[in-house]
């Protein structure tokens, strides 16, 4: 096993991408993700790749479109306002069925917001953002090691599905340092050939065209159905989540990313205080892990969703839980991070209210 080293989330994402074979990065500076382009600027040329600081996020994502279209593993990274600017390109990349990695180290919004951590981009990442019926595979790592592992998978799956993949982190994940083990670099020569890539016909095949334009409505519909079939496959095969202490859980915490780390701390303290608290942590934001929530909703007393947003993931939790159990919500916003203590207090409050209110007890069991 390789040695552990201490890495910051942002640089770990960059190094993991290089090891996963990323050879083209275009980006534009924005706090709190600057360590990613800075790392790429130092390292990508050393492995024969290219880093470009684009004139804007709009240009950066379109450079990635061009690079991805040549079959080169390509990525960009940014933070919330910059990701808004990239939505046009993300929609085109999805429409043209190109593989690419987009990293969003989320900061507070709306508008210029602030440079502190937030989770206000869930809707944007999972339910569009750009125009048209497309989906991204969206990973929400909760540790630096998990971010590294997911970056590797992101490139594989982006190519497998020919679809952009997003790593949805936040300022804490990007800035914090944790001990990690890096994977061995992939051997680029062993990656499958991309028959669709625009590399020049070489005079031996018909021209390849990278395109998202379908003027004929029937063909455009066919293209859309094909995309939807791909997304359906993703919902079947790519759902990832983690369940903690669910065997006897009565109250289920749910949170992702930084909120999940806080929630896990709160869960441990709650357990030590006798509360039967479990947790479901989505690792894919899209496709969302509806099934574990549905299953849990048939036997647990309540859910507590913790987010650094006004409540975005909770809409998916509601879709999964329906009315089978009450769903409580605790949030901080604008760059504030919930504390384990505050989450613990919420858990106690829920516990008390469920004991007081008989109707709030087990439903459907």
């Amino acid at each position, binding site marked *: 096993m390789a040695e552990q080293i201490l890495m910051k989330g942002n640089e770990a994402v960059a190094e993991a991408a290089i090891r996963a074979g990323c050879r083209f990065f275009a980006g534009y500076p924005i706090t709190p993700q600057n360590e990613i382009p800075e790392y790429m600027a130092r390292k990508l040329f050393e492995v024969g790749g290219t880093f470009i600081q684009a004139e804007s996020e709009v240009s950066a994502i*379109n450079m990635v479109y061009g690079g991805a279209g*040549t079959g080169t593993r390509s990525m960009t990274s940014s933070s919330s306002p910059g990701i808004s600017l990239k939505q046009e390109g993300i929609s085109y990349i999805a429409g043209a069925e190109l593989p690419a990695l987009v990293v969003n180290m989320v900061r507070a919004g709306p508008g210029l917001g602030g440079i502190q951590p937030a989770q206000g981009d869930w809707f944007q990442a999972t339910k569009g953002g750009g125009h048209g019926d497309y989906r991204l595979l969206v990973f929400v790592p909760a540790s630096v090691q998990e971010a590294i592992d997911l970056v590797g998978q992101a490139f594989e799956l982006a190519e497998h599905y020919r679809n952009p993949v997003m790593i949805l982190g936040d300022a804490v994940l990007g800035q914090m340092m944790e001990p990690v083990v890096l994977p061995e670099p992939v051997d680029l020569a062993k990656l499958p050939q991309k028959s669709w890539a625009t590399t020049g016909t070489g005079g031996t095949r018909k021209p390849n065209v990278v395109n998202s334009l379908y003027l004929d409505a029937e063909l455009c519909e066919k293209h859309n159905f094909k995309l939807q079939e791909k997304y359906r496959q993703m919902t079947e095969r790519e759902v990832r989540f983690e369940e903690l202490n669910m065997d006897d859980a009565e109250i289920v915490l749910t949170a992702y990313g930084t909120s999940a780390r806080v929630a896990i701390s709160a869960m441990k303290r709650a357990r030590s205080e006798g509360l039967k608290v479990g947790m479901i942590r989505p690792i894919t934001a899209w496709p969302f892990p509806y099934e574990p929530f549905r299953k849990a909703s048939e036997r647990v007393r309540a859910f507590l969703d913790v987010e650094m947003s006004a409540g975005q993931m909770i809409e998916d939790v509601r879709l999964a839980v329906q009315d089978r159990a009450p769903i409580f919500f605790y949030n901080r916003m604008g760059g504030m991070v919930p504390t384990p203590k505050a989450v613990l207090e919420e858990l106690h409050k829920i516990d008390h209210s469920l004991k007081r209110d008989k109707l709030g007890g087990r439903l459907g069991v």
Partner: protein
Amino acid sequence: MSVKVFERPKALSSVIFHYCPGCTHGIIHRLVAEAIDEFGVQGKTIGVASVGCSVLAYNYFNVDFQQAAHGRAPAVATGIKRCLPDRTVFTYQGDGDLASIGTAEIVHAAMRGENITVIFVNNAIYGMTGGQMAPTTLLGQNTTTSPGGRKPERAGRPIRMSEMLSQLEGPAYIARVSTHNAAQVARAKQAVKKAFQAQVDKKGFSMVEVLSTCPTNWGMTPNEALKWLEENMLPVYPLGEFKTEPGLPGPSAAKTTVPTREVKTD
């Protein structure tokens, strides 16, 4: 016996262009394809289509193509060229695409001296969307969004991209040519070839601005449109080479920028 001395270039497919009768896009497509043929680079060329009337350009060339979002073709071409530096990469963009929504992309691709070739078709109007004002629309020119003619106090004055970009150090070759008669088309051909030559020689960014007509949206017959171009566009958009890197064929243009000095920090 006789020998064929003029035919459709190999780099053009046999698909019939969708362009209106007399639209000079067809001439410019052919010039680009002839240049690709003459450099022998068809198998290693990647074109980038933009948004505008030429959005379907990928159907007409026998080369790999990527279709770019409106204005972003130079960014897409940058991505392609940086990943495949030994391929020949060109964009084909109109005036709305290049001189309006894509001004940042074209300026910065030129600034970086991206080793790509840009074919910039300037017909002073939006063709695709139905004859709206372009940044290159002439003063007084009637369009659907400049009814009664473009007025400077409302809509500013025409933008001269070739002159603007020739102030940068990145471009190796910038020329403006026209399609209003066969002699000019022959000159345009030479400019397009020179632009590809600049790329083949790895000299950096090259752009040929081609003055072009839009008979349909100008409301003229194709031949009237060519005359209108000659009489009205040429005074605003003078023809010529604005920048020619030494080493390219032909005399160097006078206005070559002075290279900035490298400084040392840290």
